[in-house]
């Protein structure tokens, strides 16, 4: 009998409020996806109807066939993959250096990587624009990837350092005793062990780069325009065509949502390791 009472109490005190919070959290998303799947006649109906009268992929077809959106999706994919490659190539060695060595200035350099992420974007974006223009790198993939590396490398360095710190140094020493060189130890012992962390970091960089708007807007033009920039231009262009806009929004949001749901647990533990002592 107490069982049923505590169950009811838990439902009212915990599950019900949480359901309300969840409705708030994913309601806007659900509404966007629903809007993108309804015929135009639904969207101009008054008063608002919540259940769609029909489900259609018409908006997606129109978006991909009549706008540059498919190309923008590809651009975003290239930029995000580029940011992942540059980010990992630069931060894996750096994280190894921070995790496995104690040297003068280590703390200062680590702190420096942390501080970089605290800078207002506006502080970087103007000179970066000027530099890219003088180097002729405006509207190139290199330019946009460089912009995204301003925040992805510091983040990756911190995340990977904390993942590497979790691997006991005894393993390095055992490998050294077995005659492995430093690079062999990294390649054959550490990298396989830190692989889940690498994947999480890679996905994190991918998602932040895919999502990024300001750098992409400043540094890209017609040639390498990413989806976020393109979608924002569409908002100005097709103000009242909400079916088209929400279809674009769904296409941008869906991949990152899926990637994110795959890694969310480990991602959270990596991101919060700065705030919460493991």
């Amino acid at each position: 009998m107490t069982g049923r009472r505590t169950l009811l109490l838990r439902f009212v005190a915990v599950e019900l409020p949480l359901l309300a919070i969840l409705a708030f959290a994913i309601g806007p998303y659900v509404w966007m996806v629903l809007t993108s799947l309804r015929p135009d006649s639904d969207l101009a109906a008054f008063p608002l109807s919540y259940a769609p009268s029909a489900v259609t992929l018409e908006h997606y077809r129109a978006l991909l066939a009549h706008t540059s959106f498919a190309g923008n999706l590809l651009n975003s994919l290239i930029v995000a993959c580029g940011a992942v490659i540059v980010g990992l190539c630069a931060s894996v060695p750096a994280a190894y250096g921070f995790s496995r060595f104690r040297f003068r200035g280590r703390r200062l350099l680590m702190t420096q990587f942390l501080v970089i992420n605290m800078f207002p974007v506006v502080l970087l974006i103007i000179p970066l624009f000027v530099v890219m223009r003088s180097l002729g790198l405006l509207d190139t993939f290199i330019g946009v990837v460089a912009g995204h590396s301003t925040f992805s490398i510091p983040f990756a360095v911190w995340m990977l350092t904390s993942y590497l710190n979790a691997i006991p140094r005894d393993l390095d020493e055992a490998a050294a005793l077995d005659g492995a060189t430093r690079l062999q130890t990294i390649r054959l012992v550490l990298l396989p062990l830190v692989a889940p962390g690498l994947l999480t970091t890679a996905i994190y960089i991918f998602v932040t780069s895919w999502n990024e708007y300001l750098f992409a807007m400043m540094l890209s033009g017609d040639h390498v325009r990413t989806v976020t920039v393109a979608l924002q231009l569409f908002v100005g262009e097709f103000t009242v065509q909400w079916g088209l806009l929400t279809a674009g929004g769904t296409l941008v949001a869906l991949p990152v949502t899926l990637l994110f749901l795959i890694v969310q647990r480990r991602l959270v533990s990596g991101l919060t390791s700065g705030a919460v002592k493991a």
Partner: protein
Amino acid sequence: MTDPARPLGRGLIPFAFLAPALAIESAIVLYPVLRTTWMSFHDVSLFRPGSAPFVGFGNFARAFADPVFWLSLEHSLIWIGVVVALQFLLGFATALLLNQSFWWRGLARALVMIPWALPSVIIGLMWTWMYDYNFGVVNDLLMRLGVLREPVAWLARADTTLPAVMLALVWQGFPFFAVTILAGLQTVPKEHLEAAVIDGASALQRLRHIIIPAIADVLATVLLLRTIWVANSLDVVLVMTGGGPGYATYTLPFYAFLKAYSAMEFGYGAALSLLLTALLLLVVIAYVRRTAQTLAS
């Protein structure tokens, strides 16, 4: 230290590992920051290439005499205070609920994070659509509930636009609070809570006397971090309102960006972004001291 007898030159090895990251960051972060600092003391405008006269503190003096600067600063302070506070409260409540045990907890935890994973452009798009005057779900729901008699043009009125954009940002940011605080809650020793229950402490007393003291460090760190992020965020404003109507949603980072990007007044924009940085400096220092201590050890 594992190898006490180090031959000469070994001290350079760590720097070899750090070199690529440091080189890239110097080029794309350090140089731009120095350049911005230089610009802030010069009158740099894209319309006059090759001529950037030194103006000393002229750009800063101009900011202090600029009513739009003060207005943006005021909006920024409201923005930071309200958004961070609401994100914190909602996030804390969510974390406390997620820390209970029920069968769909894992699912709830994953779903609640979704807003945080979305791009600002999509956030702007979703919320603009929901705030739509004619077909927006916000007006419709509020009218059905009897809160409103007639629709409100949420993003076109000077008095509703800033709160409307702030709500979108609260929505985006509370999940990060929730999961960070949840991670903290899971480190609170169960025995302490059980002992308190036996001693007859109410839920509120346990929260005040055991849970909050135990996670005070986590709360402080995440509050500092979010304050910095919220203070710097300008893309949601940019995509939702473009600062309007009038100056209603001008915040400091937005104004700095606008001056540099639309008006091409790089010197003034640089000075404005340095002022923002200076305002945040104490928060940044407090955050960095806490975090660097945890991870660098």
